[in-house]
């Protein structure tokens, strides 16, 4: 293996990644994390880098449906798995109920934590359509938000859950 401390001699690995349903054959530096591969190689800038060390949750993506911190996941660990980023959350024709609900309740202020929070929330709602407040708080415990005080985020997730249960969009639900 080539030495890692001389950038000119970085080992580039050819890997196959499945992201948001697309399969990509990529050459990535072998020390890359999944977040680096997504942002720097695939240009998917939805997942954010808030700390780059697993502390903030802004980089959360789904790996086979499980919320995962992409900034501390070696990219090789994603090979053979389904990666879903915020860009892949919604169907092409309309926003995901969560996205719509966050928009309605003001769940995103600066929006920097939002893509990570939505991925954690999406995994929660996939498993549990009627989460309690406490279950929502537990599901978000790895995602820091510095703007909202979380209150409007909980409201958004509850609204989206109701919408998903009734197969409607939050906007209809609220009649606005």
């Amino acid at each position, binding site marked *: 293996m080539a030495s890692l401390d001389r950038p000119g001699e970085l080992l580039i690995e050819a890997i196959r990644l499945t992201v948001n349903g697309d399969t990509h054959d990529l050459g990535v530096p072998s020390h890359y994390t999944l977040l680096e591969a997504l942002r720097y190689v695939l240009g998917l800038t939805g997942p954010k880098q808030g700390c*780059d060390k697993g502390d903030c949750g802004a980089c959360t993506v789904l790996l086979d449906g499980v919320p995962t911190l992409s900034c501390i996941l070696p990219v090789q660990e994603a090979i053979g798995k389904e990666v879903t980023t915020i860009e892949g959350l919604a169907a092409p024709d309309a926003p995901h109920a969560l996205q719509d609900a966050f928009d309605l309740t003001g769940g*995103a202020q600066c929006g*920097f934590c939002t893509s990570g929070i939505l991925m954690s929330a999406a995994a929660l709602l996939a498993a549990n359509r009627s989460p309690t407040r406490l279950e929502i708080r537990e599901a978000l415990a790895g995602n820091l938000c510095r703007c909202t005080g979380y209150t409007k985020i909980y409201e958004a997730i509850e609204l989206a859950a109701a919408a998903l249960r009734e197969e409607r969009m939050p906007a209809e639900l609220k009649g606005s």
Partner: protein
Amino acid sequence: MKLEDFREKQIAGAASDEELHEALEREFQVIGRRLRRTDGLAKSSGRAIFTDDISLPGMLHAKILRSPHPHARILGIDVSKALELDGVHAIVTGSDVPETYGILPWARDEYALCIDKVRYVGDGVAAVAAVDEESANEALDLIEVEYEVLPYFLDAEEALAHPEMPIHEPKKPDANGNISKHVRLEFGEVDKLLEDSEVIAEAEYYFEGTTHTAIEPHCAIGWFDTSGKLTVWSTTQVPHYLHRELARVLDLDVAKVRVIQPPIGGAFGGKSEPFDLEFCVAKLAMITGRPVKILYTREEVFYAHRGRHPMLMRYRTGADKNGRIQAVDASTILDGGGYESFGLVTTYYSGQLITAPYTMESYRFDSTRVYTNKPCSGPKRGHGSVQPRFAIEVQLDRLAEALDIDPIELRRRNLLGSDTRTVNEFLVRSNGFLECLGAVEHASDWKDKYRQLPYGRGVGVAGSCYISGTNYPIYPNEMPQSAVQLQVDRSGRVAVFCGASEIGQGSDSMLAYIVSEELGVPLDYVRILAADTDFTPVDLGAYSSRITLMCGNACIDAAGKIKKLVKQAVADGWDCKPKQVALAGGWAFDVKDTGRKMPISEAFNLAEAKFGTLGATGSYNTPKDIHGDYRGGTIGSSPAYSFTAHVAEVEVDRDTGFVDVRKIWIGHDCGRALNPVLVEGQMEGSAYMGFAEAVMEQHIFKETGLHNAPSLLDYKIPTSLDTPELESLIVESVDPEGPYGAKEAGEGPLHPSIPAIANAIYDAVGVRIDRLPFTPPRVWMALQLRADREKAGALAPWKRESGRTPLPAAGD
């Protein structure tokens, strides 16, 4: 699609006749409604492009070499080895940018990279641009810096006591080089009134420093094109000031510098002045001819900092037997860290901003800001006044107890009221503080809880007041503080150009609501282009809670001009008076006969045919003649003041000292809520942030000057599981100066969190914790001390029948 189809579509989306009738009944069409943000979906779908999401062709990445010493003289820097490294394009050191910078024009004391001295661990000394971050980091290791290590101070009182070892050259020959600013102001006869007071509360408070920790780290990209124009994209909340400073420091024509502020991932004051990275990317771009990006690591953000000043505050507060405040005597030491930043303003704010919402017969403050060899302190949400607010509100709790008056009642007895002046002569117009107090008292069931909850549980109250912008800009000038330009398209679409900084608070949306309200266009017909100095008229930036009031007024001014023309053109066609024409819900209609109407685009077209291309500018400038008539009387003078009251409910675990904040009720007078969803968001975010400072956050340093915990894991900020329930109670006092009566909501609601929690801890377990944060060891120690005194018979058991031993002793 043909133009007629557009018209059909627009009509389909416009308001129905019924809705127009309803509209006629309402005071406002858009203002005050719970609407979506203009940028909400872009953010929730990951499409918003933040600074670090931008990648330009050929872009280089740069890194800054930082000092390992808290205080040292730079004897030499050798970059030759680093320059030889493959992939390295350029290296700059202090001598390449030999001009000082600083946010305050009269206190510029920083260099883009240090030249003579470093003043804290983390001070920048060199910057490398390379093909990628890895190469740049590797080059940093090859730069050799020779330092002469100097004695250093991490404690403000110690630095103050040692003028012979100055961190900065003294400003005058005899001055103490470790003093950044000293202010002493006195209003009324403090000493006499203290002497005559029935009770005096006297205590020393310490506010541990905290920092913003916006989730987005600072990032900047510089690009110097072949025409000699510099463009800088930055996570700044003050693009206009950055624009000026870049040009001045880099010796460029201001007209050839462009600053673009993309959406920002949180700021809270932490991005409100120029930073080293902006000068470095600009200089490196000028040298290399390539775009250059710097993204701070999270650790660097903790050093770049500019967070809340640690403050040591000694307070004496006297009241008469009815609880009326007679005198407040405050003496404060601010730990400024290595540089000036906003220090002069912070020093004034530490005294000037606590004179409302209460009347006080007399007031004196003596504040000294001291340099230490730590990262520079600066403005954080509630600049300079969150710390003294903690002190004064706990003082009032002490007085209330001494006089056996309910603390809410004590605050009522000292109401300042509206259309009046504070003891330091600030003009206060609208004032909804009484309603705020009533709202939290009622919602929290205060009367059933205060001193009634069982031992271990308690409630506390606190109030506050904050500015909606400052009457004076950072550099003296007579021009407007904010301006808006509107451009109207034939389709009915209206573009808003404004220098205001959207930092998550919703300033873009606020502008869109106002245009929609004034011109009757649907919200999705409004486009916002903000904070791009090449295209947007100047707004001074997102600081001191100024944007809603100032940009809002500027926007109403601009929209009003277009509205007038449109109504005139339609009225001429209908042969009626302009005032009979209303613009709302996508229509121009006749208020006397809502059946007579036309799509708003047609109305715009009529106006364009009659008056030429539709566009307008509007601006707002602050009143300049209302401040106190003394040196410093302008600092803290604001067009309007917001008011807040909190009640916090806590549960204290006597075995561990853990403080569980269960709920905070937030009553906030924002003048008028232009969109209640956004106002509540600011109230909740503020209360959360105050709560975090009360129980968790400690921006502290090891003995070596290294940051104690420069990561989001170790520097504790609340997760969803830590954060208490927050209930927002909006109070609308309708201010005469604010747009539709609006005042600020982004900073005021933070202030009472900390003292309300402190007072609630006292109600729960009978101990005063006067040092922040209220961590388990600190609370536990206080409980031990109280238990000892109870055992010795010096104190009665707290909230329990005497005879029962409280015993929160070790192993209990």
